[in-house]
Structures are given as structure tokens and as C-alpha cells.
């Protein structure tokens, strides 16, 4: 789980061009400059890397990075468990 989380944080840092040290759970997506295009870019990269599909409404109640990461982790873990 921790390994997957690290992988995802690396991927997000690369895709969204955000310093890894700023990707902490309490940071809001707005603070990180992760706008709608940024979110879709990250989602696209996660889908490509892990062969998953993430629905558009998966992030509808998400405002901070911790929750954002948890959604991605959950989708990947579900796929792996299947």
C-alpha cells in the first residue's frame, strides 16, 4: 500500500509538475495549482500506467490531496484485487 502510494505521488509530481514535498495530505488541490486539466492529466496517466478506468465523478467531493490520492489508490487496489 505504501509502495503504491509512493508510486502515485511520484507520478502526480511528474505529470502535474508539482514538487513532491508539496504533495501532503492536507494541501488543497487549489493550493497545489491542480486545476481541472491538471486533474484529468493525472487521471489519464494513472489509467495508462495501471490499466484502470476512473469515472469523471470520482472526485466530486474531493478538495484536498489526501482524499484525491485515496481515490486513486482505491481504484488501483480494486483492480489488483479483482
Amino acid at each position: 500500500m505504501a509502495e503504491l502510494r509512493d508510486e502515485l505521488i511520484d507520478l502526480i509530481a511528474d505529470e502535474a509538475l508539482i514538487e513532491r514535498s508539496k504533495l501532503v495530505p492536507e494541501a488543497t488541490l487549489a493550493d497545489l495549482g491542480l486545476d481541472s486539466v491538471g486533474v484529468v492529466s493525472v487521471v489519464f496517466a494513472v489509467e495508462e500506467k495501471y490499466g484502470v478506468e476512473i469515472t469523471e465523478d470520482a472526485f466530486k467531493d474531493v478538495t484536498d490531496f489526501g482524499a484525491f490520492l485515496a481515490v486513486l489508490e482505491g481504484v488501483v487496489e480494486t483492480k489488483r484485487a479483482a
Partner: protein
Amino acid sequence: MTGQARRIVVTGLGAVSPLGIGTKDTWIAAREGRGAIRIHHFDPGPNGPETRDTAAALISGDLLGALETALGRRVGASLDPFALMALAPAHEALAQAGLLQAPVLEHRTALVLGHGFAGIHTLEASFERFYGQKAARMHPLTVPKVMVSAPVSAVAMEFKIRGPVFAVSSACASSGHAIAQGAGFIRGGECDVAVVGGSEAIVTPCCLRAWEGLQAMTPTTCRPFSAGRDGMAIGEGGAVLVLEALDHALARGATILAELAGVGLSSDAFHWTQPSLDGAVRAMSRACEEAGALGGESVLISTHGTGTPLNDKNEAAAIHTVFGKSALRHPVIATKSAHGHLIGAATALQGVIGLMALAEGVAPPILNYLGADADCDLDLVVERARPIEAQAMLLNSFAFGGLNTSLVFRRSPRGEGV
């Protein structure tokens, strides 16, 4: 320039090319005759046809790393290569001009870049994803990466250039038109500075096949004006010049590298791929007349010089028509033999190399020359670099579709060097 219009000078140069990352490395390789055209093996992937070898000139070295170091931030995969190849020379040129973070960028600076094509790398990968892999969704940044204005937007955002900003396209003359357009903003008084040039990144398996279809590509290497020449080789890269009103440059104590003294634009309105003597002559004559360069002085001629049988024959005839009896007194160079044909960036890159040649008083050699062709009777600088007396350079670009630019630059009016 003519009348009461403001004189226009060059205060910054930037280049990334197959000859090197940066103006200095590019110039030294050109001067020393170290060409970059090689036979490359391009693999179109599992959904493409058989692989094939093609002559092309590629950038070597870590362009992205160099750019990220220069900018002090990550750029990553957010830009197509043709935007990276504009951003890097724009930074170099603005830094040399001493204009990074200068207030003039806010409102009195234009930015015009030329490209023959757009984000071909991104487009080709997208087609492979869609048609080859049958993937339903495209990357969300596909459109901003592909669009032909992506480089100017990237450069404007990076350096906060807020005056007139747009891209122009006229195939192999694109950056020539960009230079002319930028000069117009200064001449007309709307701007004090114009960041101009172009970039091109079209060395991809599919795009190269399209070029091969034109029957204009060499299977070996580019030999401008030579006996046995058999076509052009594509190159990649970008180049940027900072143009500035002379009065503005003097007022801020800028180092003046050269003056843009004449601009000639014309259209053949004739043929997609065949050149026209009339169109070339009109562009060259207008630029030279405006610059007062037809009085018998020695002029360095940086030719379009693609290495195709038709272009070089036509350009040689045009030089004889424009310069008459003095035609053989002007040293002729053709640096596409070293860096390949950068299409939309060709004029700007050859401008940068030519201005270095003027500043150092040394003409870089035409490479791969096999011997004289009676149709190309010119004072060709071949085999090795040659000292020159020329104080002016005529820079030609004659694009497919019959779109022509000729520019005349003079060495710094204040005698300063590059």
C-alpha cells in the same frame, strides 16, 4: 529602413540545432564544418509499415535538461518538442539582450514565431493511440500541445510578454515572415522590442515518409549547389532573434549585434514545389535595395540552398539576375548542408549563424560538396571556413507553395561584435 521609420537592430540571439544546444555550439560546429546529417533508422512501431533508413539531422544532448536548468523549473512532458525548441532559444536570446524580466516585455514587446508544421510528435503519437491502439480517450493536453501557437503561448507565459503575440506559417519561410512581421511592429512604433524566430520538430516516422513522397529528399546527404546533389535532409531545432528599435537599444546601453536593414517579401503564385526566378528576384531585389546593398560592396549570401536540383539552380540564377556583373564577388554559404532543413525555423537559424559569420568575419563552409555544377556558378565557400570582408548578409528563404523572404542584415552600426 527607409524614410522616418525607426531603425531596427538585433540585440539577442538564441539557437538549438543539430549542431548544438545554444548559439555558441551551433556556430562553432558550422564554422568548423562539423555537419550533423546522418542516416537514421526510424521505427514506425507495431502498427506501421516496414522500417526504413532516412537522412536527417537530429538534436543530440539533453535539450529538456538544459532548458530546465536555464529556467530553474520543471518543464517535463507538458510541451511538444517544437515548443521546447522555441522556449530554449527564446531564453538564450532574451538573456543575451539583457531583457529577462525587463519592463518593456510587459506591453511594448511583440512575439512572433514561425513554424511550417505544428506539434507533429504529439499528433503522431495521438493517431497511433487512436487508430493503432484503438484507445478511446486522448491526453487532455493534446490540443494545447499540438496547436501551432503553442510555442508563442509557452514563451509569452514564461517571460511575461504581453504585447502582440502570435504564430505565422509559410512553410520554409515561416521564420523569415516572423522576423519581417516583428520588424513591422517596431517600425510602425507599436513596439520597442520584437522576439522573433521559429522552431520545427517534424522528425517522426510518418512525417518523414510524407516528405519522401515529394521526391525531394536525399537518400544520402545534402550537397547544396554541388554536382550530384540529390535533395534535402530534414533537421530539427529552433532559433530566436531579439529585434529592437535602435533608439531603445541605445537608450538602455544594449550591445548591438547587427542591424536589420532590408526586408523583401514576395509570392510566386505559381507552383507547389517548383521555384520561380521572378519571385526570388523580387524578394532579393527589394531587400537589397532597401538596405542599399547593390552598390558593389561584398555581401555574404546565406542561401536557401536546400540541395535540391531545382532550388539551387533557380537561386543561382536569381543571384546573377539581382547582382549582375558583381554576382561572383559575393561569398555564398548554404548551412543546410550542416544542420539540415529546419523548415519553419530555417530562416531564423541561418540568420543566427550568418550574423555570427558577419561578426567574426568568417564564412562557414558548404559541406558534402562533390564538384562544380555549371548551373550554379557562384563564389561558393566550400570545404573549409573562409575569412570574409562582407559587412552585410543577404538571407534567402524560398518556401514550397512559392512564399519568399529575403532579409539583409548589416554588421553592428556601432562596430560592436557578437
